[in-house]
């Protein structure tokens, strides 16, 4: 009995001391605090784990290279399991911890938090590239280093239309047919649907009924059979890589006979590994170079991956690590510029940090970054890749901005 009581007492003392130290550490904030919300256990953890590792490694790199004008960044990184209530409480915790900016993750929580961060004026650099977050009139504090989902999907459909459709036996005889396969309930998966259908109509596609495929799907035969009734030439996949691989594999097994394009979170080094030969010919946009490619800054990405996570073999790392670096690098630059221009208030980070970036090159094979006070789309040029012999080969760089300048400027912003 004595032992049990002693254990309880020791536990209470440790817990109290830890709490006390915790609150004290929050009070003394000599460093620059940045929050990070990542999904390492939830619906998108198949791609979220690698992104989270990239964030942590990139922050180490930033601190090793002088931090923000000599001030170290303190990262508070949490897994929120892709759950919106969890994201909300974590965001409030970041506010309490006096984080000057947040590195966010999913479309659902980023869009849900958007009214709150606009009110709080906290820059929120997300891994969600939803086009809904690119119009500064509606979401001024939402930013990301990459081309948005809608732009990527428009470019991928255009690349297929330019390069693949003319080689089809029915070219010139009928319209090409498109079907979208994605999780209807997921704001991430469904974010670019309106833009995809707009682009498909613009290029003269027939559009078939959408198929709802869960982010957790491991069997999608019923959806593929439903697609077969429409006989599509092209299927757009909006989910993350495990679900996309399952659909591509089932389409191959059931002889769907269509080409595939995937959103960037469904198009990574794991796709050929998971789908095997079914992945051959799958096209997609990549917002930066794949892990280990020969582009500027990639040596640092690989070096820090080896240094801080030596237990994870490099062949298991993916493009999502590089995406994590991309978001950290633009935030770093914005913080440095804002710090020099008067301080790290949210408004200053936005106006004198992000919105001063004109063709800012972060390396990593990403497009040069542009933010203006009226447009948060970073670029209009999107490289489209294709899987060939298990590797990624560039198909075309689609320049939407030059090809449809009026639509780009007047119509396509914010959706």
């Amino acid at each position, binding site marked *: 009995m004595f032992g049990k009581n002693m254990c309880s007492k020791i536990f209470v003392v440790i817990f109290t001391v*830890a709490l006390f130290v915790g609150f004290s*550490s929050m009070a003394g904030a000599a460093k620059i605090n940045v929050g990070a919300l990542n999904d390492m*256990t939830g619906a998108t953890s198949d791609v979220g784990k690698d992104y989270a590792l990239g964030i942590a490694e990139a922050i180490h790199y930033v601190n090793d290279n002088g931090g923000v004008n000599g001030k170290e960044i303190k990262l*508070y*990184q949490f897994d929120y399991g892709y*759950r*919106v209530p969890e994201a909300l409480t974590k965001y409030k915790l970041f506010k309490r911890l006096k984080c000057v900016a947040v590195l966010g993750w999913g479309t659902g929580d980023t869009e*849900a938090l958007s*009214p709150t961060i606009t009110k709080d004026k906290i820059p929120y650099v997300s891994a969600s590239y939803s086009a809904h977050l690119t119009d500064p009139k509606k979401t001024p504090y939402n930013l990301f280093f990459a081309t948005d989902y809608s732009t990527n999907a428009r470019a991928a459909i255009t690349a297929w239309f330019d390069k693949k459709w003319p080689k089809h036996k029915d070219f010139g005889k009928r319209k090409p047919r498109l079907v979208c396969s994605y999780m209807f309930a*997921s704001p991430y998966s469904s974010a670019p649907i309106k833009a995809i259908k707009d682009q498909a109509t613009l290029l003269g596609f027939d559009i078939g009924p959408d198929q709802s495929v869960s982010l957790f799907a491991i069997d999608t035969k019923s959806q593929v059979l439903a697609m077969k009734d429409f006989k599509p030439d092209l299927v757009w996949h909006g989910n993350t890589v495990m679900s996309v691989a399952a659909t591509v594999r089932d389409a191959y097994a059931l002889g769907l006979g269509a080409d595939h394009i995937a959103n960037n979170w469904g198009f990574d080094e794991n796709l050929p590994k998971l789908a095997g030969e079914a992945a051959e010919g799958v096209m997609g946009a990549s917002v930066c170079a794949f892990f280990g490619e020969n582009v500027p800054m990639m040596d640092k990405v690989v070096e820090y991956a080896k240094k801080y996570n030596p237990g994870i073999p490099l062949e298991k790392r993916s493009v999502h690590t590089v995406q994590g670096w991309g978001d950290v690098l633009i935030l770093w630059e914005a913080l440095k510029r804002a710090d020099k221009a008067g301080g790290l208030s949210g408004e200053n980070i936005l106006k004198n940090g992000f919105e001063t970036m004109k063709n800012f090159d972060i390396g990593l094979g990403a497009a040069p970054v542009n933010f203006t006070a009226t447009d948060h789309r970073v670029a209009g040029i999107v490289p489209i890749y294709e899987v060939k012999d298990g590797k990624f080969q560039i198909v075309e760089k689609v320049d939407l901005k030059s090809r449809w300048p009026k639509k780009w400027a007047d119509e396509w912003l914010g959706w």
Partner: protein
Amino acid sequence: MSTTWLPCGTYHQNYVHDHAWWQTKFIKAKMILLLIILFVIIPLVADSYGLSILNLVGYTILGAIGVQLLIGFCGQITLGHAAFIAVGAYTSTLLILEFPWPKILMDWGLAYPISILIAAIVSGAWSVLFGLPCARVKGFYLILTTMAAQFITVDFIITGYVSQIGGRGQAFSLPPGTIKIGPWVIDSDLKVYFVMLVLVIVCVIGVLNLIRSRVGRAWIAIRDNDISAEVMGINVIKYKLLAFYVAGFIGGVAGAFWISNLAAISPEHFPWFWSLWLVGVILIGGVGSIHGTIFGSVFMVVVMEMLQLAVIPLADIYPKLLVDFLFIKEAVFGLAICVFMIFEPNGLAYRWWQMKNYFNLWPFSY
């Protein structure tokens, strides 16, 4: 009211005493103190983070009361309650965004309060629809029919059709200033906290009153033995459906409250996991006890957050602790349910009852 301050037993002289809310002056004083703490002291001392945690506690309580009512008082196991919360949230949101409210109601800030009421009624009716199978099935089979509520409501109807209303795509965002009660725009954690307090208190009092009425006794009789209840003349189907209605009604209130907390919703806010989480809340708090629901909600939200705050300083030594915290939290959730099932099947509410008895009988608590 009894003149005794600290009764060491139950000495009621009539039914009025027996059913009184505040049975002694001491209890009345304690309740007034609690109200002062909730309405005055907490708003004065808590910051935005603290209030947001308490708002999440309130949301959990509102969600879990319906589950408690169905499982704890009527014996109808449900695993689809998130669907009814979603119906409430979407009804309230759509009413605010799409309904042509007369100008006078908008000016007086009545649109949101009325939408809460309508959301609760719609959600209650929707819950009855999925409660209908309880006329023929019970136990595990009822679990499956209530789970169907989640997939049909959230994944099929809300995602496929309701979310498309107004061409917004999946996520609905409420513009600033649209959530308003009377002259107050609900735009801060503090205001949301007061809305939460009022809704939780009204719902708790409503359910406690129902439970001590004929309806509540009928539910408890059905829970304990439905055949005996039927033999005694209770219309079992009617009362089971009434339980589904009231549970759905309060779920609708929870959903309508949630939109004031975030000003945005999407189907992802109402995953099936949330239904399971609410069942966990009542298991830990105590099945068949309304204050157990409150204890369970506080435990699941506040204790977990405290644990997280305790972990933050340790992250300087072992940074992965923060990233892995959710994993720890899930493990603690599972472990807590196992521990409570084995060592304290009556939940935290029973511990509370024991503590109260100890102090009531002190210094002769043997």
